[in-house]
């Protein structure tokens, strides 16, 4: 928790203790810690001198800010029309089958979280998924399995280069 408070100090230095920067502050916290815990939300409210209800309402509004714990790896998939018509449904099914969870869930071992993302603006290489923020385009059922296998086989997670 102390680690998180130090991070909060760093983020506040980045934007200043400016209530107008609340969205950016919460987004950075969420990205850097995985999610914004209740304690952290309270701390943000105190430091910015904002009502706790206001901070929570903002945190729960935006999709890039998570108020619930996530797995070690987060897989996100775009479900919008351009990715859908390019074969998104098969990729969607492959992700759910391979990880054994539905979208919005985290695996019991805390390794994987599966989420929906809004359009990433990479529609010409759809269907698109991201793993821990790294983008992979032109996905297929087979590529999903290969890609997740690569992350599973390696303790450090990240790998070089996206699937074409």
């Amino acid at each position: 928790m102390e680690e998180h408070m130090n991070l909060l100090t760093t983020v506040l230095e980045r934007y200043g203790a400016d209530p107008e920067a609340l969205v950016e502050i919460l987004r950075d916290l969420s990205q850097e810690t995985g999610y914004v815990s209740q304690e952290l939300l309270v701390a943000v409210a105190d430091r910015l001198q904002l009502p706790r209800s206001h901070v929570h309402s903002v945190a729960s509004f935006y999709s890039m800010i998570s108020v619930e714990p996530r797995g070690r790896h987060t897989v996100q998939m775009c479900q919008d029309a351009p990715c859908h018509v390019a074969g998104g449904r098969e990729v969607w099914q492959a992700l759910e089958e391979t990880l054994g969870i539905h979208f919005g869930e985290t695996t019991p071992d805390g390794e994987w979280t599966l989420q929906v993302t809004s359009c990433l603006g990479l529609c010409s290489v759809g269907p698109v998924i991201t793993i821990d923020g790294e983008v992979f385009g032109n996905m297929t059922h087979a590529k999903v399995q290969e890609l997740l296998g690569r992350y599973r086989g390696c303790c450090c997670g990240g790998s070089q280069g996206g699937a074409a």
Partner: protein
Amino acid sequence: MIRAHVMVSGDPLSLTRGAEAIKLALEAELAFHGLEDEVHVSYIGQTGRRDVLPFVIVYPEGTLYGPLRVEDVPFLVEEHLYKGRVAETLLAPPDVLSGVIARLPRREGILYGQQRVVLRRAGIIDPKSIEEYIAYDGYFGLAKALAELTPAQVLQTVKDSGLQGRGGAGFPTGMKWQFVANQAADTRYIVCNADESEPGTFKDRLILEGDPHAVLEGMALAGYAVGAHEGWIYIRGEYTLAKERLEHAIKQAEALGMLGDNIMESGFSFHIHIHAGAGAYVCGEETALLESLEGKRGIPRIRPPYPTVSGYHGMPTVVNNVETLANVPAIIREGVTWYRALGTEKSPGTKVYTMLGDVNITGLIEVPMGITLREVIEIYGGGMKDGKAFKCAQTGGAAGSIIAPALLDTPMDFATMQQNGAALGSGALLVCGADKCIVDLAYVLMRFFATESCGKCVPCRIGTLRMMECLERLRQGRALPGDLEDLERTAHQVIQTSFCGLGQGAPVSILTALRHFREEFEAHAAGTCSTGVCPMAGPVETVAAQHDYISFMR
């Protein structure tokens, strides 16, 4: 003495495929051959050939190599840059287009018929270099305005040019500026709407990544015209590369006196700040954007008052789309007559489209307003993929309309599209072949709105959900009696009673789809999907599960 320029594709996809390693390897190899002072290496942003990423273009010849691996770099440098021969084995395969329209000549590496105003520099200059921007007439429009024109003259020029907002609605830009200039206020603001969330639209990202200074210059000109000294760029949280490029560009422009205090010694000051969002489609709506900019939930405000009267901090505010602002420097520089020669009488200028779906070539094009959909598909899209028959296209992302084959030869501009009961929207063109199911497409679109509705007003919050459920039943062959009529009635009600543009736009695709493809909906209601796309009588994806999904997304 620089004798060659080597451009490495630096878009996000190329970067994930190792473009950075390629650039580093190029620099190392050039140093090895002692060529580092003769050959300049840089990234380019917008890339025309997405099929060969990551690629390298060697100028002045314009030779295209790709897709490249790091291992290829030593051979490329030795052959082309050291020995002066084309490295044949690494050449990119010829453009897929060449087989289709071989007779159309290329001009300066740009497809024939494309008229580039907004994307003129994208892919040609290094977006991280203000010097290259200036070398291509950059900041010339601003210099001209500050030295020769009064704010009123700049405003009049934009009005006379007939420039319309490129975010989707097509509102006259000059008129919007005039409203703000007319307000008696000490402080006015310019806000650039870079919250490009319409699915299938990524033109603004490529403009920002490929030519960030053009947007900054457009904002400064807007500021000069209406008497604003501060501007904000509200950019999507997902667009990290574009944000970095903008931050870098602002620093460079301030260092050279093109932005900041006393620009070019003219006495005019203009500061630009960046605010990145955190993922919410509704924030593209201008009043929701302003709420978010002030650090709140992105919930739309009641209008009137419009932002032109009471916007950021309650002050008169111009909110313009990225592409709109990127048009402004060229208009000021080249003049009204030049600009009005492009496009159509009622909608002058060009439009940037993102071309997607069942066409041979997907990607970004900039063409004059008024070009037909058929021309876009056949000339720039390289025809339909696998020779499929054209079924429909969707313009303008999720909130756009479904275009039936009957409209293939209708000029695409704001006015003509509207006469035909369609909307041009933000510039996404999702082309669907005969194998796509219209009900399935409508369902996916409505699911998007049910997910993204901010929840402020009942018609949108509940209406989108009811329509999605109805489409889900149709798609599963479980339609209830009267579902189709319910769908249509709800769609009209949501349009009439929703608080903001999100709800008012949500049913447009359904209604246009119903108008053109009613028999397909009726067939679904009777239990058949002729394309075989829909999981008719498939596993029950229960309505409850969909509710869980949506409440999760909220």
